[in-house]
């Protein structure tokens, strides 16, 4: 029996996340349970508590859980709980034997919250999408690029986005947004 229990250490631990007064700031979204679900959306049933969006580039979110459309057979399931094992069991048993794939990726990536009145300009330093509210409304999500790193970008409020990024790319994203803060006004 192990006499030591490992602690969790996020790749963001120890990083001073940049902000620029009044314009934009970056915060750690904190630990979350994450799954990639691939297969037919209806197979998940009610097990997740949030229905899987079938409209492209949409996220459904409700009481700490969110399902983000990533592709026609791929969703990112996010849950604001640190330990996803119960959820994993629930989902697996709902899927039991059905042709689909559920993969736990809780540690694969981290979440960053970017917000502020200049959030669009800040993100547009590296993201080439049109982030205007008319073309990228609240509730829209997509996989895309932020400069040289792939991210999932999700608008959670008018002036707030959540970025999901693979853990080894997180320092790059933070440094890039730090640099970009010099260029916004």
């Amino acid at each position, binding site marked *: 029996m192990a006499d030591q229990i*490992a602690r969790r250490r996020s790749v963001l631990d120890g990083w001073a996340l940049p902000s620029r007064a009044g314009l934009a700031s970056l915060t750690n979204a904190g630990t979350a349970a994450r799954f990639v679900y*691939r297969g037919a959306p209806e197979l998940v049933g009610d097990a997740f508590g949030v229905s899987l969006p079938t409209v492209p580039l949409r996220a459904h979110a409700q009481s700490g859980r969110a399902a983000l459309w990533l592709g026609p057979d791929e969703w990112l399931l996010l849950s604001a709980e640190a330990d996803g094992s119960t959820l994993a069991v629930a989902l697996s048993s709902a899927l039991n034997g059905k*042709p689909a794939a559920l993969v736990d990726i809780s*540690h694969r990536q981290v979440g960053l919250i970017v917000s502020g009145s200049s959030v669009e300009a800040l993100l547009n330093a590296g993201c080439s999408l049109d982030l205007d509210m008319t073309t990228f409304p609240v509730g829209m999500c997509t996989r895309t690029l932020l400069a040289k790193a792939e991210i999932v970008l999700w608008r959670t409020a008018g002036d707030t986005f959540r970025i999901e990024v693979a*853990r080894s790319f997180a320092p790059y994203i933070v440094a890039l947004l730090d640099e970009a803060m*010099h260029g916004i006004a």
Partner: protein
Amino acid sequence: MAGLHRTNGGGRVDRTKRLSFTFDGKAYEGFAGDKLASALLANGVHLVGRSYKYHRPRGILSAGAEEPNALVTVDRGRGRTAPNLRATQVELYDGLVAESQNRWPSLAYDFGAVNSLFSPLLAAGFYYKTFMGPRLLGSNWAWHKIYEPLIRRAAGLGKAPSLPDPDRYANRFAHCDVLVIGAGPAGLAAALAAAEAGARVILCDEQAELGGSLLSEWSVEIDGVPASSWVDEAVRTLAASSRVTLLPRTQAFGYFAQNFVALAERLTDHLGNPDPAAPRERLWQVRAKEVVLATGAIERPIVFPDNDRPGIMLADAARTYVNRYGVRPGLRAVVIAACDSGYAAALDLHRAGTAVAMVIDPRANGDSGLAGSVRAAGIEVQIGATVTATRGSQRVSAVQIGRAGTEGRASTGEWVPCDHVVMAGGWTPSVHLFSQSRGKLAWSDDAQAFLPSAIAPGQAQRSAGACRGVFGVAAALDDGFAAGRAAVGREPLGRTFKVTHDITDFRGIAGSHGAGARGSKAFVDFQHDVTVRDLKLAAQEGFRAIEHVKRYTTTGMATDQGKTSNINALAIVADHLGKPIPEVGLTTFRQPYTPVTFGTIAGASRGDLFDPVRRTPCDAWAQAQGAMFEDVGAWKRAHYFPQAGEDMHTAVARECRTVRSAVGMFDASTLGKIEVVGPDAAEFLERLYINSFQKLGVGRCRYGVLLNEAGFIIDDGVIGRIAADRFHVTTTTGGAARVLHMMEDYAQTEFPDLKVWLTSTTEQWAVIAVQGPRARDVLAPLVDGVDIGATDFPHMSVKAGRICGVDARIFRVSFTGELGFEINVPADFGADVWEAVWREVQKHGGCAYGTESMHVLRAEKGFIIVGQETDGTVTPDDVGLGWATGKGKRDFVGMRSLSRPDMVRSGRKQLVGLLTADPKRVLEEGSQVVEGLRPPAGTPALGHVTSAYWSEALGRSIALALVADGRTRIGTRLNVPMPDGDVAVDVVTPVFLDPKGERLNG
């Protein structure tokens, strides 16, 4: 600082704000709002540069981006040096330090001017014809040793900075409904119209102030107010709208497919004391639904003999200096007017107090409506006359007037003394961006210019104002307004602006107006010193395509890209060939419109932002231990862990020894991992890999080899079956993304019938390899929920269990030949679990080892590294992996290629081991293997050394090599020729250690 050359008031400079600056070390003063050029002119300085080839004295020709002559270096110190800036664009700030270029020892006394003596020799293309002999010391000797170095030293304008650039550069992607480029009357009106309709508008102009040519107007009134006040009001209106982005100091430099336009914004160069942390420039990458090009037109010089002396200037520039900057460039002017802007300039100069000696109009029937006003001002106007010669060493002092059409003949016309010559050759619409967007240009006889015609497919744009030949303020405003409305899908309103004192004749003339007497030069391309004679010589020598003329004479190839010269050059060539201009055609417009700073394009990509630095969860520990790292793809991997006093070789020897004798731990987190899930997962892998997977039991692993369809190895890795429908596939570090992409390709497009899904889990898991006879002892106290004992957990199996209380996938695999495990834990636990394992490892006298030891350990076992033993030309059989091929498989990716003739021939290179006769000698990777001793140059190689190490376990060097028919050569001696002599090697099987694999069981 009133001085002779400042007007008494007027203009857009702020006369209350004096700024001091230096040019070539001499101190001067100017006003806020001045450009370096206007401030120099205000101080009576005309000589600002030397030409490229002949080092002729040159002055300020224009007042804008098209300037070919007045190039300076601005130095702000500490790496903030910028060569080749146009003085006409450099905004004055207090303390500005500018230097002239391409002269030695000084601008006034330039030694390079001796080139003028040789100028008869330096005709177009001269260097192709000479510098080939003498052949004293072999062909080309003199060229290499004498001429080329001389030519190089003479070439170039400014000097490249010698210190790294400390500034930052920003980037912004933007989208809009309408991007308006150019903020003259046409652009402002277009922006107003689009903004009125509520559209998202970006309006950019390369100049510091919006307003374009209106800023240079004195008498024009628009809707009852002076042009300049109208501009201020229009800008205020636009600025008030939140949907409008105004970008002064921003040139649109590139127009790409699908309305993608690149803009470069200057942010700090105009400031005296910029924040050193603020970005210097910003790249805007704009995707616009519609683009309105309102880029105006550029005035052409008139080509007459010695038309390049300082003091000779474009008419529009003269008007701009007088009207916008309150500067009188000369005291006594001669105006050559082939269109209205010349007459207008005469009036403006006259009003500002310059004595206008004469206006001459080279057109036989030159009848400007303005001639009357000019005469009324008491200025003599000569029609059908031109300048046939000029005088003045560092500034024009007189011009000789002759009849137009007296080309080439010495004329005996009168000499008119002057210190300023103003020329208005006509206007060339700025179609650069339109043409870059791959729109078609058509020659207009009417406008005597190339104008935008068909728009390229996929682009949505319109041109307005002078850039499409619609001249005159009123017409430009109306045209712009209509374009702005059309861009947002509205009907034209038929709005007309009321404009007084407009001028409308901008056509002018193009071509040469006299090459002049021998010894004189009529310049077409000022910056590259291309004369009328050069152009004619090119045509005479058979360079008839305009593209050939350009390349043979270099006309239009200087930093101004021929903005003022291309049409004149074209007209001269057309005239010489007796062809109409459109038949001769134009050279290609390319980005950038004017030069763009490298840094602006590179942006934030420097240092660690050049490419993301990927680090593993265990990396901080390795850094703290003083590990040395190597780059593998974007990853930093611990290469070795030197202890005090150790170099790489001693560290690696120690690490290897420790693994073989006790235990070592290794961070394998960078290995690619793909979770392959679905009822058809096994069948899918069966079709991709050479191996069989259908029968692989749950909990078992297999070494998989992946080929491309050409039959060559591209990746490998251990694949574990986690459940009937779930595999944990590992790939090489560098191959992870490539393999996943390839798998998706086959899953989606070749085998869509299979129910299988792929998910990257590379970063989900931290992977800690524990290898060595004590590996099990290390792990035993840490794991629970799983039996890692020998019987229950054989080599090549995988189990779920817990380590340090954390759910883990534990593999029993070995890349060292020792008893080994690879622990996969969720990445956030990686660092802690690593440290826990480390504590155990230390108890057993173990160590952490890096990639170098990993390479040695696997080489001792003859395991290949994809990318080292393979190079994209190697089949499984070549490296002895034929055994891995699933028996009886009908197909897998690359299988068919393995039976192509070249794959089954004899003589293929095969993996073997090499042992040097001298056991201490470590071969060099990449060295060649041959048969005989002292091979003469040209001896074919049998193969090459792929891996070579000092093997601590064997106490000697080892090497792997790919050698033709290598397996049949086992037992023979070959030679590796090195610069210091031959190295004898014996060919052996590639497994150096424990061929039976007994150590796997610890």
